[in-house]
């Protein structure tokens, strides 16, 4: 298997609750005074889904009220529909939920995905560049809505070396670094800067991850 082949995320379930009960709305972090409908999705890759949830907020009047990764990733799942993440968007009416889900699914199918970073495909890397942030990741990262962000994920060792290389490769700032272990045992970083700088940083991250995989012990 060649390196840097897309590993497409698998959407495992998509459901709507047009009029959700108030207790459920509260439990999942929604505000019953503004939100009445929910859209729920499970996917076997968590980080592309966070990107896709953010994408949904740019195309519909929806809020991402809940998004959590499951422990140890999709290979240690609680059921065939669980995958690696449950994402929940909330809106005032079901039509907005529909629009939001369409954008979310389009982003998962056509844009955000992990890539292979070793010849045997055992190492995966996520060097995604969001050209224009929605209000979900904007709020989490502290970057303004509409700015660019590099969303970088890899296994612990590869990510640690890769994030350092990315920060040195271009004029970017580390908005957040998630050291291992995350829920899925990966490590991640959100880098902010101009779009060109974010893209250069992301590609430096990807090639460093590949390099670490090829020579795990210092030569």
């Amino acid at each position, binding site marked *: 298997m*060649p*390196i*840097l082949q*897309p590993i497409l995320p698998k959407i495992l379930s998509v459901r709507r609750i047009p009029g959700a009960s108030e207790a459920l709305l509260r439990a999942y972090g929604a505000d019953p005074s503004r939100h009445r409908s929910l859209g729920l999705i499970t996917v076997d890759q968590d980080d592309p889904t966070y990107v896709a949830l953010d*994408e949904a907020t740019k*195309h519909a009047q929806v809020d991402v009220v809940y998004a959590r990764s499951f422990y140890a990733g999709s290979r240690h799942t609680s059921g065939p529909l669980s995958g690696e993440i449950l994402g929940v968007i909330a809106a005032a009416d079901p039509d907005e939920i529909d629009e939001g889900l*369409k*954008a979310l*699914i*389009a*982003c998962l199918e*056509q*844009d*955000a*995905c992990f*890539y292979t970073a070793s*010849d045997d495909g055992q190492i995966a890397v996520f*060097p*995604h*560049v*969001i*050209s*224009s942030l929605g209000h979900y990741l904007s709020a989490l990262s502290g970057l303004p809505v509409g700015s660019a962000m590099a969303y970088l994920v890899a296994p612990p060792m590869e990510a640690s070396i890769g994030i350092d290389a990315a920060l040195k490769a271009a004029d970017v700032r580390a908005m957040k670094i998630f050291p291992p272990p995350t829920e899925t045992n990966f490590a991640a970083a959100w880098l902010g800067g101009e779009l060109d700088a974010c*893209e250069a940083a*992301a*590609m430096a991250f*990807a*090639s460093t991850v*590949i390099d670490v995989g*090829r020579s795990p012990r210092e030569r």
Partner: protein
Amino acid sequence: MSIPLSRTRDLVAALQAELGARDPMPPVGPIPEIQLPPDRIFPTPQRRSNFAERSAAHTTALVGIGQVGTRYYSDVVLQFQAELAVAHGAVATELPSDWAEKKGYLSLQSRVTGHREFLLRPDLGRRLNAESVALLREKAKKNVDVQPILADGLSAVACMGAGPDLMRLFVEACERRGWSVGTPVCAKFSRVWLEDEIGEITGAKVAVILLGERPGLGTGDGLSAYLVYGPKVGNTDSNRNMMSNIHARGTPPAEAAQRLAVLTGAMLEQKTSGVPLDLSPLVAELGEIARGGYRAPQQRVRLVELP
């Protein structure tokens, strides 16, 4: 629904091309350890079928020889190769030019001039050359009852082996019956039909050619005898009677000479040969062979012994 896509996939594809150009081949993985095959893959069957056992006793053909997996036993293969070599050797042997004279036969030769031509041109082997025709006209007894002919045919080995014995025994058997026997001749590079021209020139009632037969597996020394009443150029095989497998393991020469004499007698009596010849009155003398069908049990001769 179409949404504005990020450039990530294009960037990654470009990075892939860049890395691919730098390192076109993935590193070679370790070579897995190759296990040696087991010592013996096919078990040797312990029992042989009754049918194979009993059929094999009646023929020297390769039946009931068993198998190992999808192949023959080594023993069978070696035996086959040895038998084939015997057959090849017999075909390749040439009758020495002076052999006939040394044995006291009138020496004749067909129109064939060499061994290779003999194998490739059967038509030339069926006619005498000019010198032989002249020799035969000059020296041979004419208008006899029986003209005996010895010939090399496809096995000079057989001709030189049991040939003289069979010739002598047959001539004696004919003389005992009071028939006039022609000058014994020996023809080189001869095919069966040469008996027609020889018999026609000597004016014989019956011509008998004894010649080495086409070698089979392990049998390079077999003689055949072909008898024809009223020999003349133009006779076909339907005009002939024949006896094959005249050798120690088939019909021994002494027995064959008696049977040939009986056949000759029937031809002289019925004044015909081949298909029209009625063999039914001869059952008493020829035995079961006159009816056809039965073959006495035969034993394969081992040419190779395995340790």
